[in-house]
C-alpha cells in the first residue's frame, strides 16, 4: 500500500539528499527530449499545482513556439493547508532539479527559474545547496526568484510577472505564459512535484508511471498524525486518512483539494480515488492534493466563512468580480455563521457564487466560488439552522488547520 518513489531513499529526517546519494540510488535519466514527452503522455502525468493539466501537452505547447524559451519550477506553494512541495524541495531537491533540467532540454529552454515562496526558507536553502552540487555547465542556467508567500503568487501568470518585474500578481490572458512569459519568451511554468515525477518517468518510463505512479498528499485537519503522505494514484481517501492515524472520532465532511477544492460529505468521500482525472469526472478536484477531515463537533458554515474570508483577503484586488462579488460572499457567510443572517442571504449566496466563475483574470474567484457551492450542498442543514437563527450546533468555531 505505501508506495514510495518521490520520497524514496534516505530517512527524511536527515533533510536534503546529497547529489552523490541521489545519483547512486536512481542512476541517470534514460529518456529525454521528445521521447520523454511521449512518456509523459503515455503515463498521463497531470500537473500537481492544482489545475491538473496534462504535463506532456504543456511541454509540447512551449516546445512548439519559437525560442528562446524559459522554464519556471514552481515551488510557491501558497495553499495554507499544503506542505508537500516544501517537503519535496527540502528532502529531494535533486529530483526537482533533474525534472527542471529535463524539462528545459525537452522544450529547448536555456534558462531555469526556481520560483520558491520566500518564507519557505528551508526549501530555498535546500534547493540552492543542491544547485551548487550540480556540474558548472548545468548550474549556470539556474536562477532563483522568491516571491512573498501569498495565495495567488503561485498562479502561473503571477509567477511570470514576478520574475519579469517583481510583482507577484496574475495578469490578463492572453497571452498565456506558453505564448509570452519571462521577457516575452515562451515559458513553461510547472509545479515542482510534477517536475520530480517527470524525472522518475525519465528513468522508469510512462508505462511504469501509469501502473505504479504516486502522488504526494497533505493530510491535515482532524487526523492523529497530520503530514505528507506519498501514495499510489487511485488510492482511496479512506486509506490516506487511515495512514495519517485516522480521525479521532466520527467526522461529517472533509475538505478535498485545499481551499480551492470542495467539501465532501464523509459518507461520499471515503471511497473516492486520489487520481486527478478520475476525480474530475465526478465533478471534484484533487487540487494540490490536500485531504482535511472536519471534526464532527465543528461547524461547516463557520469553517467555510473563515476560509472564504481568508481567500477574499488574498485576492489580488485587480478584478471587480473578485473584489466585490467575493467580498460580498465572504461578508454574507460571516453574517450567517454568527447567526445574524438576512432572509435572502442563502439565495444571494447561491446566485453570487454561480455568477463568479470565469470572471477574473485568474482562477481565484472560481476556486472560492466552488468551495462555497460545495459548502451549500454538504452543509445544507447547517446553513438552514444558522439562517433560521437557531444558532450553531458546533462546540468549537475553528477547525481545519490554522492560518
Amino acid at each position, binding site marked *: 500500500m505505501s508506495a514510495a518513489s518521490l520520497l524514496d531513499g534516505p530517512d527524511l529526517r536527515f533533510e536534503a539528499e546529497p547529489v552523490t546519494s541521489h545519483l547512486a540510488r536512481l542512476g541517470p535519466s534514460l529518456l529525454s527530449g521528445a521521447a520523454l514527452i511521449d512518456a509523459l503522455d503515455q503515463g498521463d502525468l497531470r500537473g500537481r499545482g492544482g489545475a491538473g493539466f496534462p504535463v506532456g501537452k504543456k511541454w509540447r505547447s512551449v516546445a512548439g513556439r519559437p525560442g528562446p524559451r524559459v522554464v519556471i519550477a514552481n515551488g510557491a506553494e501558497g495553499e495554507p493547508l499544503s506542505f508537500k512541495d516544501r517537503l519535496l524541495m527540502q528532502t529531494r531537491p535533486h529530483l526537482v532539479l533533474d525534472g527542471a533540467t529535463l524539462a528545459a532540454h525537452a522544450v529547448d529552454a536555456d534558462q531555469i527559474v526556481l520560483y520558491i515562496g520566500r518564507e519557505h526558507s528551508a526549501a530555498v536553502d535546500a534547493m540552492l545547496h543542491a544547485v551548487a552540487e550540480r556540474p558548472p555547465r548545468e548550474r549556470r542556467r539556474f536562477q532563483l526568484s522568491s516571491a512573498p508567500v501569498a495565495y495567488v503568487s503561485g498562479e502561473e501568470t503571477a509567477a511570470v510577472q514576478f520574475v519579469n518585474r517583481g510583482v507577484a500578481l496574475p495578469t490578463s*490572458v492572453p497571452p498565456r505564459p*506558453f505564448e509570452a512569459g519571462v521577457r516575452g519568451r515562451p515559458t513553461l511554468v510547472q509545479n515542482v512535484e510534477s517536475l520530480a515525477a517527470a524525472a522518475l518517468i525519465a528513468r522508469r518510463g510512462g508505462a511504469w508511471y501509469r501502473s505504479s505512479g504516486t502522488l504526494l498528499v497533505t493530510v491535515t485537519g482532524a487526523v492523529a498524525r497530520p503530514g505528507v503522505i506519498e501514495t499510489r494514484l487511485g488510492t482511496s481517501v479512506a486509506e490516506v486518512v487511515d495512514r495519517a492515524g485516522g480521525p479521532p472520532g466520527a467526522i461529517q465532511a472533509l475538505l478535498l483539494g485545499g481551499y480551492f477544492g470542495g467539501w465532501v460529505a464523509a459518507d461520499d468521500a471515503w471511497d473516492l480515488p486520489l487520481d486527478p482525472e478520475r476525480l474530475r469526472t465526478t465533478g471534484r478536484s484533487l487540487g494540490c492534493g490536500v485531504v482535511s477531515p472536519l471534526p464532527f463537533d465543528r461547524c461547516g458554515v463557520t469553517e467555510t466563512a473563515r476560509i472564504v474570508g481568508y481567500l477574499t483577503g488574498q485576492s489580488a484586488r*485587480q478584478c*471587480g468580480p473578485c473584489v466585490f*462579488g467575493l467580498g*460580498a460572499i465572504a461578508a454574507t457567510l460571516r453574517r450567517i455563521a454568527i447567526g445574524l443572517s438576512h432572509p435572502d442571504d442563502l439565495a444571494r449566496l447561491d446566485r453570487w457564487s454561480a455568477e463568479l466563475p*470565469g*470572471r*477574473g*483574470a485568474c482562477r481565484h474567484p472560481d476556486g472560492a466560488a466552488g468551495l462555497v457551492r460545495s459548502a451549500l450542498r454538504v452543509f445544507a442543514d447547517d446553513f438552514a439552522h444558522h439562517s433560521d437563527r437557531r444558532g450553531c450546533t458546533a462546540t468549537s468555531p475553528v477547525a481545519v488547520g490554522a492560518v
Partner: protein
Amino acid sequence: MFEPSARRWQGPSGRSRVGTSRPSLAVDRIRCDGRGYCAELLPEMVRLDDWGYPIVSSDPVPDHLLDHARRAVATCPLLAIRLAEGGRSR
C-alpha cells in the same frame, strides 16, 4: 521538432476551436472597471452583476448582433472588451 503536435495544440483550455470561426466576446477583467456601456449596447449578450460588472455570454456572437457587438467593443472607454476569434470569454 514538435511541429506536427504543435499544430494540433488547441489552446491551454484543451477545448477545441474547431467550428467556432464566429467571434465571441472576451473581457479583460483587470482593465474592466464596470462602466456598463457594453450591457447598454448589447443587452442580448451582456448583463451586469450586482456591482455593475459584466456577465458575458460565451456563445459566438450571432450574425445579426455583430454590428452591435462591434459598437460595444468600440465604445468601452477602457478597451476592456473585445471580439475574439474562437476565443474564450473571461
